[in-house]
């Protein structure tokens, strides 16, 4: 009886499993999704499944690495079916034909989707006539301000940029601060200031050719205004890690930040988390540029369907589902019901702002409270002004961002100079400026900023145009390859050739082992050494050879390898010529020269100290050895928080409290301090292993030597120099080689300290301060996806590693003689 029951249970389970298998799964990835979004979209997926009989599997992607994930997935041929990405996504993925053109893929259904949007918003997801994606949600910058503080100071909310500057000057004069939540290093942040003048950093000109507005005086005016607002006013820091609400609510001078520029989400956050403030704050929309147009939308997300998606039709159904009004209502309501983490969700779907939807906005007190925001979007969406992507913007963007970063550093160092001259802090200088003091110095600085901007762009503009010229054929090339994708995949390429070579070598090895009689007797030996040899062949030699090949080609991994175009030594020339490789080598060298000697000296000292018989020996050793087992990434994460650039960071808090510095040090956000911070972390972490090796070595030094020194009256120091150090020469050499080679490979620390998986900033440290050789390789290979250049950098690294190792071996041998 029991047996038959079990048998039927098994059959039943199998059947159920089969239906699970039979039902296809739609893979859906979403950027910026938190825990609550996960729950929401899983629920929506279940609803979708009921009617469409397709399961929906959901994957959240963080803002820092989503682009890398999408592009890598496309290159791997393993993308999701449908994804939510940033507004630039349809361009970035469409240009390499990684996503489908909705108009050609779904010709009879696309009109229904298009009708859901204002005509002005659709170009956001298009390249020319190809619709690669549709916008999903949007956000706009809002100025949140404290009405009570404004009243006290006699201020009214600004409507133009110059009014805004005036407000900030008054705040400065009284010691109040402003917080600008968006990374000033991001391109879209800059567009807030230039688009109102109708000028855009990178765009197509009337003839359809990419160009930059950098030399346009109106564009530069916008840039100077941006720089002023970012750097010439009191601010609590560049990245408060979510602490904006806290400073906004504060009232004491030194912390009070009555102006807080943030996304519309903050509106709800303040009501829920700081109810005591209700009635004491209000919102203002982003000011209009003097003589310019209002520009209100800044960022948002878009929906795309991938070329390699298995369930394209279901993906389209999912998009239609998500952009339908009932689901939109559900999403809005869900966002408002998340307790402490509630936020506003604003869509780009036009019906949300039409009279037919007013009933929804009035249906609940929570929704009614958003009335002002809804009005903003009603006003702005129909005439939304967008800047489109352009081939080459990948490389041109960083040019400008690095330049603007350097101008920011310049402004700060000039402020420091003025501060030093008057014996005050940088903060006090800005307060003084606000009060109208030091007029001459102020005017000089302003003029210098304008000059610097003008001359900087004058240098950069030709470089940008060069890049555009080089990239001009790219779009057409990608489109061409994609249209013959299957053929391209089947065509012969370097990897296929390499595999044949490997096969030949393998056959040769077998013949060698089995052929001659002498060898056959030793068959077992050949068997034992075969695995490492085979693995080395397949995973080291073959890839190394293929890498060499790729370094002479131009190749984007979204395409099959056969589409790699022979490029001669151009990759090497470019990578050296554009300064990236020399700069990264310089940084790597600096890094090695600082971390290795300091690390060794410090660890020698401590190994010597630990070599004594101590009380609680076990604990002392544990303390010094523990960083060794704890993993680089976790440690780096801790340090990103320790080294925050405002009072929020522990280190800065201590330094300020003890009055060792007047202003917080920008460890990770200033080009001067980033690499030193990385080095400090590397030394801190490397101590554990070095101390260990040296200690083991010291324990081998005979007691008698130390005792003899003691008898001669040597103190600790003398013992250290004369006995300990010479006694561990072999260990010192070992650590030296290891240290130098290791410092050339550094990546994990820099990646984490640069916050690459955190915010939307795309560089390895401010102005690429952390871009040593391996990060540069990663950047070329997996950020701009120029695999040829990445391989070129890799080979230069290879040659240098060999040279250095040989030099060190030679020196060691000489030393032994």
């Amino acid at each position, binding site marked *: 009886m029991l047996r038959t029951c079990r048998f039927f249970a098994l059959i039943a389970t199998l059947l159920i499993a089969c239906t699970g298998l039979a039902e296809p799964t739609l893979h859906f990835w979403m950027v910026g999704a*938190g825990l609550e979004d996960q729950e929401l979209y899983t629920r929506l997926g279940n609803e979708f499944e009921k009617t469409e009989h397709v399961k929906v599997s959901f994957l*959240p992607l963080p*803002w820092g*690495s989503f682009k890398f994930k999408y592009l890598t997935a496309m290159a*791997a041929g393993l993308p999701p079916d449908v994804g939510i990405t940033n507004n630039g996504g349809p361009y970035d993925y469409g240009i390499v034909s990684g996503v489908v053109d909705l108009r050609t893929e779904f010709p009879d259904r696309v009109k229904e989707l298009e009708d859901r949007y204002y005509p002005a918003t659709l170009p956001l997801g298009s390249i020319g006539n190809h619709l690669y994606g549709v916008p999903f949600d949007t956000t706009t910058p809002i100025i949140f301000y404290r009405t009570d503080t404004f009243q006290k100071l006699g201020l009214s909310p600004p409507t133009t940029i110059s009014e805004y500057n005036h407000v900030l000057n008054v705040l400065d004069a009284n010691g109040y601060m402003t917080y600008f939540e968006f990374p000033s290093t991001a391109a879209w942040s800059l567009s807030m200031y230039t688009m109102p003048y109708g000028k855009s950093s990178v765009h197509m000109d009337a003839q359809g050719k990419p160009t930059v507005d950098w030399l346009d005086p109106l564009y530069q005016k916008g840039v100077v205004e941006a720089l002023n607002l970012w750097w010439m006013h009191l601010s609590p820091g560049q990245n*408060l*890690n*979510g*602490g904006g609400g*806290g*400073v906004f609510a504060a009232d004491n001078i030194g912390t009070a930040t009555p102006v807080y520029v943030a996304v519309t989400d903050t509106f709800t956050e303040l009501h829920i*988390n700081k109810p005591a403030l209700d009635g004491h704050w209000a919102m203002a929309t982003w000011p209009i540029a003097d003589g310019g147009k209002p520009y209100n939308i800044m960022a948002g997300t878009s929906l795309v369907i991938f070329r390699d998606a298995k369930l394209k039709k279901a993906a389209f159904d999912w998009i239609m589902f998500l952009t339908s009004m009932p689901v939109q209502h559900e999403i809005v309501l869900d966002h408002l019901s998340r307790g402490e983490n509630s936020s506003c969700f604003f869509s780009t779907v036009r019906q949300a702002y039409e009279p037919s939807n007013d009933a929804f906005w009035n249906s609940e007190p929570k929704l009614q409270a958003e009335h002002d925001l809804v009005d903003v979007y009603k006003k702005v969406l129909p005439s939304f002004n967008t800047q489109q992507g352009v081939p080459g913007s990948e490389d041109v963007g960083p040019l400008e961002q690095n330049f603007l970063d350097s101008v920011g550093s310049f402004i700060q160092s000039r402020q420091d100079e003025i501060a030093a001259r008057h014996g005050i802090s940088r903060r006090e200088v800005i307060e003084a400026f606000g009060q109208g003091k030091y007029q001459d110095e102020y005017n000089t600085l302003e003029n210098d900023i304008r000059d610097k901007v003008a001359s900087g762009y004058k240098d950069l503009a030709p470089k940008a145009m060069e890049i555009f010229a080089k990239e001009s054929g790219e779009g057409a090339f990608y489109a061409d390859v994609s249209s013959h994708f299957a053929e391209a995949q089947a065509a012969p390429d370097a*990897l296929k050739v390499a595999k044949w070579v490997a096969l030949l070598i393998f056959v040769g090895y077998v013949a060698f082992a089995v052929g001659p009689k002498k060898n056959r007797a030793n068959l*077992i*030996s050949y068997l034992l*050494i075969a*695995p*490492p040899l085979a*693995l080395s062949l397949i*995973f*080291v*030699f*073959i*890839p*190394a050879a293929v*890498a060499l090949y790729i370094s002479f080609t131009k190749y984007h991994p979204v395409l099959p390898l056969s589409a790699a175009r022979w490029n001669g030594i151009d990759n090497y020339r470019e990578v050296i010529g554009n300064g990236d490789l020399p700069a990264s080598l310089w940084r790597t060298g600096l890094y090695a020269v600082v971390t290795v000697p300091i690390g060794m000296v410090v660890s020698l*000292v*401590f190994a010597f*100290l630990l070599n*004594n*018989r101590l009380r609680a020996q*076990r604990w002392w050793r544990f303390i010094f*050895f*523990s960083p060794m*087992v*704890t*993993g680089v*990434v976790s440690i780096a994460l*801790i340090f*990103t*928080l*320790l080294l925050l650039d405002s009072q929020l960071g*522990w280190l800065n808090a201590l330094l300020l409290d003890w009055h060792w510095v007047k202003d917080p040090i920008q460890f990770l956000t200033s080009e001067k301090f980033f690499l030193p911070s990385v080095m400090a972390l590397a030394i*801190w972490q490397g101590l554990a292993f070095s101390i260990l090796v040296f200690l*083991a070595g010291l*324990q*081998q030094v005979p007691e008698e030597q130390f005792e003899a020194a*003691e008898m001669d009256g040597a103190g600790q120091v003398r013992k250290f120099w004369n006995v300990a150090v010479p006694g561990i020469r*072999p260990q010192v050499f070992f650590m030296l080689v290891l240290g130098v080679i290791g410092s*050339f490979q550094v*990546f994990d620390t820099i990646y*984490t300290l640069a916050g690459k998986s*955190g915010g939307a900033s795309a560089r390895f440290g401010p102005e690429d301060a952390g871009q040593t050789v*391996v990060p540069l390789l990663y950047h070329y*290979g997996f950020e701009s996806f120029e*695999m040829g250049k*990445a391989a070129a950098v*890799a080979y230069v690294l290879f040659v240098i*590693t*060999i040279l250095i190792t040989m030099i060190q071996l030679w020196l060691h041998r000489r030393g032994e003689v």
Partner: protein
Amino acid sequence: MRKEKGSLWGTYLLLTLGGLVMIFPFYFMIVTSFKSKDEAQAIHPSFWPHPFTIEPYIELVRDNVVFRAAVNSVIVAILSTVGTVLICALAGYAFAKHRFAGRDVFFVVLLSTMMIPGAVLLIPGFLLFRDFGWLDTWAPLIVPGLGGAFGVFMSRQFIGTIPDSLIESAHLEGASEWRIIFRIVFPLSKALLSTLAILTFLGSWNSFMGPLIFLLNDKLFTLPIVIALLQGRFSDRQNVEMAGAMVSIIPVLILFFFFQKQVVASLANTGLKE
């Protein structure tokens, strides 16, 4: 270990200062992981949580990703370790104790792979794994390392010190090769095997770039990736980030404290064998 006649106050002072610097980041991590969201974001950081809450850990459990990643890391590390130790030790034995044509040539060929920095192999590795269909699986994290030249090198050095006579007499008694390996060589190589195992385990546990590039699906992520990703998923919740770091660090630290002697001895071996 030396017995010191004079006072060691200078030593203790330096050690204390050094110790404080070493401990400081850990102290920060522990304290922050028990703070509430508001306190963690306070403009002036507090050095002890007021109130003391385990809410960040609850969020972490809800999120589930860190714990799953820890399990993944353990699985990958164990598979790597077992496979690598076996393959390297066997090959090292053959290189050390067998005589066959081309032995030294093959050994040098193997050693030369140590010269090639891993970064060079990243790009073509990606293409190779794509070709094999290994992307988004654990294979790229485990398989290439199995025949690590360093492991073979160390094995050969160590096994080379086992007296030939032992092996020859076993041969004369008619023992098969496998018997020799598993009954004689391995038992005598405990130090080597454990050193290799610890090094491989730690290497796999902390490996970051490989998993970052070759894994796409978050169900397969290992711990370092997830820890780094905490920055993005909890960008305004420092306390949860630090709770995650705690989860990844504390278990390893506790294990380390109890097995200090063995781990330290193993790791020291690598620096001494010349």
